[in-house]
């Protein structure tokens, strides 16, 4: 009796021991290196499926390196998961992060400089081929941390057929155009809602830029949440429903809105260019795309994510990880990914592939995001990005639900952000 019980008790630690050998094993001898890879998806489209297929192809082509991809939700959930695992001592090897997340991870000193790694190993990374607009953001203190992979801008999608039916033949180019087009659409009952602008801080940043000032400040310990431009931008959002009646009242979910658009219920949609392919394919009408309509100027945040390698992983895995990154950013893979999604090609070599050229023939709308890059700025970044972003999101939600005025909501957000960032100044 005693022996069987103690045997039972002893197996528990043994289970955990043999279990824990998983991610930390060096596996040097017969060396199939296993990499774990976290990736988020925050754009409409069957992107998780495409990602899985891409990774499978990598695994087939590299029998000695097996990558295990894990979908981790949207960017915020992805970051939370990463922070948790970094703290828990079992981080993944490779991850996709947005720019704001990159800073939070750098604060934790959790990311590997890629230029150093490329020098140490014999894997050459064509840093020069990546668009500076994308690559430069991943640099800090002279080191390059990320390789651009799924980059986007915020663009306007519109139901060209419906707009034509109400006599609007040109794409809306200004804020006022959007309102008037939306009003006409609803008057003739072409759609259920004229305009939907997802209640998200990323898209909102575009409006703020267009109204005159970026949300980003000059350094990472400050943000500009309650400037006159920011208030104007948020007020316009509120007015879309409160004053002009072209949008539904309340919070608009950025993952639900595209479905409403493709289903013909919404006439004009602001969304990431990363959902271009699926939006066009799912719509039974002609889809037009355009820059985010301007106010004082055109403007858009860049979005999406880059590929990063985590720092505290065994050395032989870093080499394998860099091989994976290099492969994923090769023109063939980059073209495949951009064609499946609508994400902007991250490097020049991708644009010259036949696959991308053929895609452009079929979907000339894909040029919109690329052309808009001249007006694009890096997305919101600061220390404690999750918390700071949360404060801004609260303000947006409060304003569009009518719980607070745009000005007071943003003032609260600024105070909150300042108190969070105070510890970093």
């Amino acid at each position: 009796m005693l022996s069987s019980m103690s045997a039972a008790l002893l197996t528990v630690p043994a289970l955990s021991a043999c279990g824990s050998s998983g991610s930390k094993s060096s596996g040097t001898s017969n060396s199939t290196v296993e990499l774990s890879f976290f990736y988020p998806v925050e754009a409409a489209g069957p992107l998780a499926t495409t990602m899985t297929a891409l990774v499978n192809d990598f695994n087939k082509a590299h029998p000695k390196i097996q990558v295990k991809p894990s979908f981790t939700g949207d960017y915020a959930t992805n970051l939370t998961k990463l922070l948790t695992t970094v703290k828990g001592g079992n981080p993944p090897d490779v991850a996709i992060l947005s720019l704001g997340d990159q800073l939070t991870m750098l604060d934790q000193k959790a990311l590997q400089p890629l230029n150093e790694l490329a020098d140490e190993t014999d894997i050459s990374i064509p840093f020069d081929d990546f668009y500076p607009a994308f690559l430069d953001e991943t640099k800090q203190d002279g080191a390059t941390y990320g390789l651009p992979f799924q980059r986007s801008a915020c663009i306007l999608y519109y139901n060209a057929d419906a707009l034509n039916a109400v006599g609007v033949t040109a794409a809306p180019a200004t804020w006022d155009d959007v309102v008037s087009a939306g009003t006409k659409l609803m008057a003739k009952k072409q759609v259920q809602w004229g305009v939907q602008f997802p209640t998200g801080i990323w898209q909102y940043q575009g409006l703020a830029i267009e109204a005159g000032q970026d949300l980003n400040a000059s350094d990472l310990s400050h943000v500009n949440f309650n400037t006159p431009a920011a208030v104007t931008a948020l007020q316009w959002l509120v007015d879309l429903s409160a004053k002009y009646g072209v949008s539904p009242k309340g919070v608009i979910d950025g993952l639900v809105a595209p479905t409403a658009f493709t289903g013909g219920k919404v006439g004009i949609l602001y969304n990431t260019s990363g959902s271009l392919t699926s939006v066009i394919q799912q719509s039974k009408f002609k889809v037009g795309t355009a820059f985010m309509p301007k106010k004082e100027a055109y403007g858009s945040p860049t979005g999406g994510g880059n590929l990063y390698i985590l720092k505290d992983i065994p050395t032989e895995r870093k080499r394998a990880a860099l091989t994976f990154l290099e492969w994923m950013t090769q023109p063939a893979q980059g073209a495949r990914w951009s064609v499946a999604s609508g994400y902007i090609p991250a490097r020049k070599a991708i644009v010259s592939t036949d696959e991308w050229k053929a895609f452009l023939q079929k979907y000339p709308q894909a040029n919109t995001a690329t052309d808009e890059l001249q007006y694009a700025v890096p997305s919101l970044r600061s220390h404690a990005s999750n918390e700071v972003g949360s404060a801004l999101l609260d303000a947006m939600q409060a304003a569009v639900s009518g719980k607070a005025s745009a000005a007071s909501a943003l003032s609260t957000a600024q105070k909150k952000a300042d108190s969070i960032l105070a510890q970093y100044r």
Partner: protein
Amino acid sequence: MSTGLPSRRPRPRSSRRHSPVTPYLFVLPGLLFVVVFTVFPIGWLLVRSLFRENTAHPNPSFTGLANYKDIFSDPVFLKSLETTVLYVVVVAPVSVVIGLVIAQLINRKGIVASVCRTAFFYPIVLPLVSAATIWLFIMTPDYGLLTHITSFLHLGSSAPLANPGTALWAIGLVAVWRQAGFYAIFLLAGLQAVDPDVESAARLDGASSLRVTWHIRIPLLWPTLVFVLTLAMFSAFQTVDLVYVMTQGGPIDSTRVMLFNIYETAFSYGNTGGASAQSVVFLVILAVIAAFQIFVVDRMRSEIDA
């Protein structure tokens, strides 16, 4: 069963022939896990809530009651406290009342009652994530079932999860849908324990069904009702899964219940000290509810039994 020995005292209902160590060995395995994963964590939270530990100060340093001062001046925490209490105070009684209605309806023989029994009970075993997903789809704005229904009834479109005034109650609706059948099980057992003679006597005296319910059933059902109410309060207090899947605390923190806030504070913002303090507050309130159960319910039970 005579052993031949004279009985010196009444047989105790316990085994005598074991070494003094054996009971402890029997209890040890389970107790080990209970101590490691329940008792120790409580102590850990109490201690760690007195230390500052967050992303800006990763090394824990003793700060006394500073964390408590911080959370009680943090509007988000206070709101989560208020939201949770409001939710519990409304959703728990509503689920119990609906459970009682269901119990009454199925407390009879017949095919209808048996078939409907399954209808009311299946949400209990339906995985919570499935339930949340299903209702998320039903409540989706623009093309969810609910919007179709309200448009059909000319009530306009509905987006309960997008509106801070209704999001919490939308979650409550799902919770009630899910839990009412569970409480009905207990209440059914309670109803069936009510002495039918008392009831028939009342009916013979001409009392209508409603009066029977009000004056006879409910008083006798009272201990069960209170027990079920406490269960409901516990369950409502621990809501977090639904919030995570359906609203992530929004819109504007209107569904940010305490457990969700604790989770975000600890894992999303990295503030272990603050999250520990919040957890301690949470546990204290739980203890109050539990004390209510132990002292009030058991006293009632013994009164009834007497």
